[in-house]
């Protein structure tokens, strides 16, 4: 081959590569724009009625906006809280009407586009740590009510913290590719074969409530299989396990009474168990504020979730015969949880027959033993009973022996827990 023809072949290859890149870029861009209406100019933001603001406040609770958009001890809705992800930390921005840092210059249409299409006011793509794959199902009228509520808040001149994401995840192009792969705008759909309660529940669970932001596993790029996936998953970085809401072996509620499900969401405790860890925040910031009608709707939806074809069970090996776990239980746990693990109603949950104790992932058990905790303070449970942290008292071997004992006693049939399992979740000292 002459030098000249080699150069020509190289040039041709370059052109082909450039064309393919251009095509991919065009495809990604098209996938990012698909289903997105042109932004209509709004009427200037008029003063909203008190009723609209109140409805927006309620819906903001249902979406738990404050959960991320308020820093610990910070001004409500002024942003600043970091959402840790495997790709870096995404900081929730200021949602107060401050013109510089908040939503002061936003229009209702721009706010709707953020929820529905995941775009910032200037059209930039937003990170899905903001759960727009769920919020895309929120109706325009609900989005407008939330916007009216946010505009009614006192403006807080609190600057937004830039995200600390690693390359290439800090690039808009990477986000465009992610969205092309995993995000489609959607609308709230009514399933005519189901009742009004189920449909309202679906809207709250799949949309505003964004339950599957935690209760689903994520792939290597941080995407869930679908907004309808509630099959459970380990919450990235925090490493609490958000159990399956469909599986009878985890947190499925098909066989619970409506009242028990509603009580758990309303008060944080119920005769069938208590919430701890990240779900405490959800109950205290969101579900305790919901109306009985909405809690009933969510209950109807959750109870109707089809159970998984295959149930993850941790079929158990019997508790070890050396009795270390039993001794530790008698010393540290029995005074509250009882010699037979039957707990004390309203104060300490039963461990016998508890799915938190027996489910395949021991993550939450390890967290609770190491870090202790209180169920959330709610109007229905204003003075909860707490559990002490044992991180400074029990070694990894001790915790493993204790948990293996719990998982194999009083009819429980959960697999043994190893010291390595415990160490994996020991993140607080």
């Amino acid at each position, binding site marked *: 081959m002459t030098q000249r023809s080699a150069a020509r072949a190289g040039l041709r290859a370059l052109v082909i590569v450039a064309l393919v890149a251009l095509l991919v870029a065009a495809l990604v861009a098209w996938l990012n724009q698909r289903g997105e209406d042109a932004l209509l100019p709004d009427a200037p933001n008029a003063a909203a009625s008190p009723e609209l603001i109140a409805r927006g406040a309620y819906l903001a609770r249902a979406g738990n906006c404050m959960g991320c958009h308020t820093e*610990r*001890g910070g001004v409500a809705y002024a942003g600043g809280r970091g959402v840790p992800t495997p790709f870096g930390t995404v900081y929730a921005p200021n949602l107060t009407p401050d013109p510089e840092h908040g939503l002061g210059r936003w229009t209702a249409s721009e706010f709707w586009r953020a929820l529905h299409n995941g775009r910032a006011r200037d059209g930039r793509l937003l990170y899905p740590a903001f759960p727009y794959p769920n919020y895309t199902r929120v109706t325009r009228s609900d989005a407008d009510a939330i916007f009216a509520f946010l505009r009614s808040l006192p403006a807080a001149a609190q600057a937004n913290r830039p995200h600390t994401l690693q390359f290439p995840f800090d690039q808009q192009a990477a986000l465009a590719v992610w969205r092309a792969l995993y995000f489609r705008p959607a609308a709230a759909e009514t399933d005519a074969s189901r009742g009004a309660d189920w449909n309202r529940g679906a809207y709250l669970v799949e949309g505003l409530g964004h339950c599957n932001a935690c209760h689903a596993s994520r792939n290597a790029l941080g995407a869930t299989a679908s907004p309808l996936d509630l099959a459970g998953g380990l919450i990235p970085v925090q490493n609490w396990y958000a159990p399956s809401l469909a599986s009878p072996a985890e947190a499925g509620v098909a066989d619970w009474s409506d009242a028990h499900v509603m009580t758990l969401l309303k008060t*944080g405790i119920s005769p069938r168990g208590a919430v701890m860890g990240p779900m*405490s*925040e959800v109950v*205290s910031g969101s579900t305790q504020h919901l109306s009985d009608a909405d809690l009933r709707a969510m209950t109807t939806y959750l109870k109707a979730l089809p159970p998984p074809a295959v149930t993850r069970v941790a079929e158990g090996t019997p508790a070890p015969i050396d009795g270390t776990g039993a001794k530790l239980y008698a010393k540290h746990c*029995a*005074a*509250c*949880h*009882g*010699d*037979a693990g*039957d*707990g*004390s109603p309203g*104060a*300490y949950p039963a461990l016998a027959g508890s799915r938190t104790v027996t489910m395949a992932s021991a993550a939450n058990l390890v967290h609770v033993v190491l*870090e*202790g*905790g*209180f*169920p*959330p*303070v709610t109007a229905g449970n*204003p*003075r*909860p*009973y*707490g*559990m*002490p*942290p*044992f*991180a*400074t*008292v029990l070694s990894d071997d001790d915790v493993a022996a204790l948990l293996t004992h719990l998982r194999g006693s009083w009819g429980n049939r959960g697999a043994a827990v190893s010291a390595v399992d415990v160490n994996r979740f020991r*993140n*607080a*000292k």
Partner: protein
Amino acid sequence: MRASVVALALALALAVASVAHAAPQVEDTMAQRVLACTGCHGPQGRAASDGYYPRIAGKPAGYLYNQLVSFRDGRRPYALMTNLLAPLTDDYLREIAEHFSQLELPYPPPTPATAGVDVLTRGETLVTRGDAALRIPACVQCHGAGLMGVAPSVPALIGMPRDYLNAQLGAWRAGSRHAMPPDCMAQVAQRLAPSDISALSQWLSAQAVPAGAKPAAAAVEPLPLPCGGAPGSPK
């Protein structure tokens, strides 16, 4: 007849079951609710033996409340406390603080000083007179003449282990412990040399707490610095 036999059998079975494993004795009290605290802070909050988890029993309620809020809101960084308190409201934290503040329990004996006379004299001077040249107010100005603290928000300085005093003064000086702004104690701690911190902890931990000693009911004179955590302090 058959029904009553079944009922009797059931009653017997229940009786046997309750003998076989006792149900936990759970009281509807604050003491029961805050067992989550006393796991580390010692029975009834008398302090752990390791010197790391301080006594909380008998400290002024406002002080305890400020610390609980500061831990919950991340002003005092300690993950175990922050996670534990995250789901609790201001009202409940106040109730927890009041519970511990009302406990009157004996204090442990003091730790004999290990430092020389010069160091102890320096410690005592700082406590009782401060150091005007370094703009360090006397400890007694804020913490009460008896050093048992002043209600509602100034804590005691005696009855605590030397390690704990060193750790806290050091943390304040290094900027890892904070109080509500303006943070008066941080300003004072930053004027203390490491040798002064050591002198203070040597002298303070060697003082016995008199039987029945309690925080002073009210400040005798205004605080020398504005303190965010103390109601009514100069701004």
